[in-house]
């Protein structure tokens, strides 16, 4: 049985970067909403012919476990590593929380992962092939922010789920999460307009590749004794609480050092 690494949210942001990082050494299943965008990512990866696509909108979790079961059974393949990178964010004040938004964000960030893990941990479907699960969480599970109650709740849930799974699925499966700070992706681009951001990031802003590097490490055998951990990749954000003067000074220093223009990515179809 050939085994694969499943990456959700593979068509953009961290997911795309993780796909490109793992493609040389893993057979991938790229999951995302839009098949053209997935195709675009596959063609940017090394060995595109080895990778499969699974177009699926995770904001609706009904039937998800069964669909994945069928996907694996018809191809007679298994999944060795699972990276849950699908996710979305959004600000909503407590006084105006809409339950439809809550339902959607929990479906994508959390409940879809529960549905996916179910067949992956069943002998009858995945034949004990699973070795690691890696969640993309967020430092929002550690830091509060206005308008972030719902998003922060989804990521707090992911962190707590991963420690319980780490105990339940040991010693066969390792379960970890990566907690990035805010990194510029399609999802977060507009937040970067806030001029006060940079002062809170001692190492400056990160790139999606920084997250992909962490995922690659946690997926690999080099992390074979690492489970239930939250790997923070945030340029120092969570350990930095500057006073306003410091923040402003650091920001102008970092701005002065940012000589290279933002990286240009090939545009999506």
């Amino acid at each position, binding site marked *: 049985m050939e085994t694969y690494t499943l990456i959700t949210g593979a068509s953009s942001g961290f997911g795309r970067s993780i796909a490109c990082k793992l493609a040389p050494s893993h057979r991938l299943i790229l999951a995302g909403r839009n098949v053209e965008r997935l195709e675009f990512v596959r063609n940017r990866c090394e060995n595109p012919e080895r990778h499969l696509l699974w177009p699926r909108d995770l904001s609706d*979790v009904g039937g998800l*476990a069964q669909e994945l079961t069928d996907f694996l059974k018809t191809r007679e393949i298994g999944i060795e590593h699972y990276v849950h990178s699908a996710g979305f964010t959004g600000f909503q*004040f*407590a*006084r*105006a*929380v809409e*339950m439809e938004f*809550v339902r959607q964000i*929990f479906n994508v960030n*959390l*409940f879809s992962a*529960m*549905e996916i*893990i*179910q067949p992956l*941990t*069943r002998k009858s479907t995945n034949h004990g092939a699973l070795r690691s699960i890696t969640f993309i969480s967020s430092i*929002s*599970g*550690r*830091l*509060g*922010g*206005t*308008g*972030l*109650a*719902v*998003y*922060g*709740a*989804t*990521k*707090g*849930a*992911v*962190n*707590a*789920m*991963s*420690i*319980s*799974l*780490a*105990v*339940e*699925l040991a010693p066969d499966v390792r379960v970890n999460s990566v907690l990035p700070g805010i990194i510029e992706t399609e999802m977060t681009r507009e937040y970067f307009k806030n001029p006060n951001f940079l002062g809170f990031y001692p190492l400056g802003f990160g790139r999606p590749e920084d997250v992909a590097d962490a995922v690659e490490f946690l997926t690999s055998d080099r992390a074979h004794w690492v489970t*239930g951990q939250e790997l923070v990749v945030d340029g120092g954000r969570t350990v930095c609480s500057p006073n306003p003067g410091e923040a402003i000074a650091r920001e102008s220093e970092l701005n002065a050092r940012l000589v290279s223009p933002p990286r240009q990515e090939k545009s999506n179809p």
Partner: protein
Amino acid sequence: MREAFTLVTGAASGFGRSIVEKLSPSRRLVLSDMAAEKLDAARSACVTPGHLLWARDLSRPEGVGAEFAAFLAKENAYIEHFVHSAGVFGHQFARAHDMAFVARVFNVNLFSAMELIRTLTQKKANSGALRSITIISSVGTRVGATGQCVYAASKGAVNGMCLALAVELAPTVRVNAVLPSIIESGMNRGEFSKPEFVAAIKAMHPLGLGQPGDVADAVEFLMSDRARWISGHELVVDGGRLAGKTLLAAK
């Protein structure tokens, strides 16, 4: 004149019942739970009069916020402190996740609280009266256990929500969570009837078995003015379990 109350969900049993006993001498309470008869019994046990009852099943969160707003208007009351103690617990293995169970756990433990907090932070419903939110979470967010994935996820969500709300609602409202370890309550009475289970629990906790009153004490402190500079905090009430877990596991 409108009167100030403390809303306690899950008030008829377990930690909620104990919190009601602790707070009722000094505060006027709105007791909430799903069974009206049990709520009556909980109120009858209070030594002071004047507490209100709001019977509502929080496993269906749709409309909870609006219904509670109507309740406040009818009773001419507002809420100064909110304690979310309602909770659903259960074991489920990852390979057998049942989404109906997931929905029930998240509806009671998290989404109903979001519904209530929306109403409590709206000026027109609660007149800006809210001063504190205290949510019962769990040490299951700090240590993993087999079959706990769904329950722990719901409590991890509570912790994440508390942090964000602590920032968003400051300086008027303080938001904190209490993280108890395993304590005998309505949820787990069956397990606690087995002597070998009790012995194992005792061995996990350097300070011995906990009681619901230990959680109520922590809630009372966090709500009070003595905690006026504490927000976004996770107060672990676990008889030293987290501190001692490595050594004890090796025994």
